[in-house]
């Protein structure tokens, strides 16, 4: 019986194990192997380089830029998307009709192509676009994609537009799960209307917020399409990201070994950052008595 259960256990877990092996472990070991070689996958031979790919990457200005830009995007994108998602969720939650329709409407940008949205924004920010022509007529002339801060901000804004609906869905489900009796009891206890959100809604939303925040922080480590289409990582390296750097090194420069080292460094930076952020969010929740 035990042996049969054992076999069944292996059978049922095999899809996950095979999936992990093919799409996680083999690529991971392959990347580890490449990262210590100078192989470009074309040469018939290669040399082991030890840690020199990592050392080169750690000294590269474009890798430094990718590292710091991730946190710059974080500072712009995460607060923006969180506030917008909460706002949308609260507004939609208060509706008595067409709630689903509005949520689907806000969710649609998430399904849209990053390439298309980037190209639309590129057109909107063109020097000759109506927006810029109008701004110039009142003496405001901004090089949106050619100035480091505005370029970062525009990319952050597109991402926020894209992810707001998705996160609003998660937060709406959190709002829906708050029992109305809690608000009634609070009203009896003297909680005023303007205190309801901060004292009741927000604490009870903590699990949903925790999820959306972790997802939002994670997004900033995977930015590629919008930057590739809009700025190519520029001006200078002002919007360069980990994914851009890996793409450039692997597919333009064909430096598979070096690109693998950058990819591993990106993984380590992502893992450590998300771990710290997760801990900080838990401390925040505990300190306020929300968990």
């Amino acid at each position, binding site marked *: 019986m035990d042996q049969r259960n054992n076999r069944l256990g292996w059978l049922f877990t095999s899809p996950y194990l095979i999936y992990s092996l093919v799409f996680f472990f083999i690529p991971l070991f392959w990347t580890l192997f490449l990262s210590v070689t100078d192989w470009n*996958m074309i040469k*018939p031979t290669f040399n082991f380089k030890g840690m020199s790919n990592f050392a080169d990457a750690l000294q590269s200005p474009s890798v430094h830029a990718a590292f710091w830009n991730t946190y710059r995007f974080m500072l712009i994108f995460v607060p923006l998307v969180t506030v917008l998602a909460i706002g949308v969720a609260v507004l939609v939650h208060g509706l008595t009709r067409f709630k689903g329709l509005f949520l689907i409407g806000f969710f649609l940008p998430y399904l849209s192509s990053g390439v298309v949205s980037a190209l639309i924004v590129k057109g909107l920010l063109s*020097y000759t676009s109506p927006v810029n022509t109008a701004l110039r007529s009142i003496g405001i002339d901004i090089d949106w994609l050619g100035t480091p801060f505005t370029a970062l901000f525009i990319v952050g804004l597109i991402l926020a537009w894209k992810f707001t609906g998705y996160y609003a869905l998660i937060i709406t489900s959190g709002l829906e799960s708050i029992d109305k009796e809690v608000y009634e009891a609070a009203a009896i206890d003297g909680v005023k209307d303007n205190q309801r959100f901060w004292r009741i809604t927000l604490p009870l939303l903590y699990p949903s917020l925790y999820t959306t925040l972790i997802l939002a922080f994670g997004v900033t480590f995977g930015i590629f399409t919008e930057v590739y289409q809009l700025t190519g990582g520029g001006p200078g390296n002002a919007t360069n990201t980990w994914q851009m750097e890996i793409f450039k090194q692997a*597919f333009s420069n064909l430096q598979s070994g070096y690109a693998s080292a950058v990819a591993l460094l990106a993984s380590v930076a992502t893992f450590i950052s998300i771990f710290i952020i997760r801990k900080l969010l838990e401390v925040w929740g505990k300190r306020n008595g929300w968990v």
Partner: protein
Amino acid sequence: MKKRNSALSVVALSAVLLSACSTGQGTATNDNGNTGGSNAGGVTTIEFWAAPNPTQQAYWSEMAKAYEATNDKVKINVSAIKESPTSEASIQAAIAAKSAPTISENINRGFAAQLSDSQALVPLDTIAGFSDVIAARDMTKTIEPWKFADGHQYVLPIYSNAMLFGWRLDTLKELGYNEPPKTYSEVLEVTKKLKAKYGDKKYLWAKADLADPTAWKRWFDFYMLYDAASGGNKFIEGSSFTGDQKAGESVLTFVDSLRKEKGILARQSTDPFENGVGIFTDVGPWTFSTWAQKYPNLKYNENYTLSMPPVPDGVDPAQSKTFADTKGLVIYASATKAQQEAAVGFIKWVYSDAANDVKWFKDTNLPPARDDLSTNEAFKPILDASPQLKPYAENVPNAVPPMDNAKYNDLQTIIGTEAFNKVVKGEIAPAEGWAAMQAALEKALK
């Protein structure tokens, strides 16, 4: 049981990893040191990867069929190079997976340098019959600058776009000129008049790419001007920096002067030349089919014209050179000897008849890389029907192909980040920019 399962898993994983790490040594090889071989029943099968666009794919499919009809010992499978994520990466993946084609087109000299550096290409001049192709096609002069630093030819250029600058003739006429300026001081004079008349409504050179460090973008600004100023100096030869300092600094000074005159708009703008925001830009012959659909009002020698790049004062404009946007055919080292020879036989058949180049020119608008393009009567009807292609045909021998260095991406990025982009933005003086660029290039070349 647990131990046995764990051990089996470790063995299986190791086997997969080891097979993935294999570089192919120890596998069955043929006489050329390659696996496989497509020689069944006396018929040699070759795989031909065409550029990822329907016109070129159709052209090569037609050529392959016609050749098969004349030679039943060769079968040619034509398919398009996949672009996932880039055509270069697809070729890299195919070589790594040992599924590279016999021959492919759409290869620029820089990528060919990466491939030849990795011993993935056959030096074409070592294959029997290759010199016959050059002679039959009348391309001895055109192919000369394609020779790599090791003395071999790895690419057979198919087409060569001698990149020209387009000028808005309508605006030039408004400013009192009937033809484009040819020297730097003449261009600056036009810029001053343009700004005096139009202020911030028009710029001489409106192009966001001028401030973008992406490597290939330098082909269409810096290199065009540099080739003209230096008489086609190689800039980087093999692994040495051989740039002409005087010519380079004069190019950067020219760009800096344009900036100071507010003649440059290095910002995103929708089709600035076509919409008249800029009056000067690089134009390749592939542009004309787009214009015919999107901007049918643009007519050659009516509201726009074409010229070779301007030159520094004191340099003869008639001697101007330019960048060659050119791509060609390569044969992969992984192919068997029989496949390599069959591939050369096919190329020889295609290029021994000028009618095939005429068809190419007609179908693609891309000027065949031949010395006689502007003199051979076979091409006359095309050039008469599309006079805007004439200056491209005339300047094929004046066009300099890209560098043959495997690090060309890094090197060309340096040109932008250290000098050109900074000068465009006014962040560095031309001479300082040139010195910083030279130092960074020499470091990268080591």
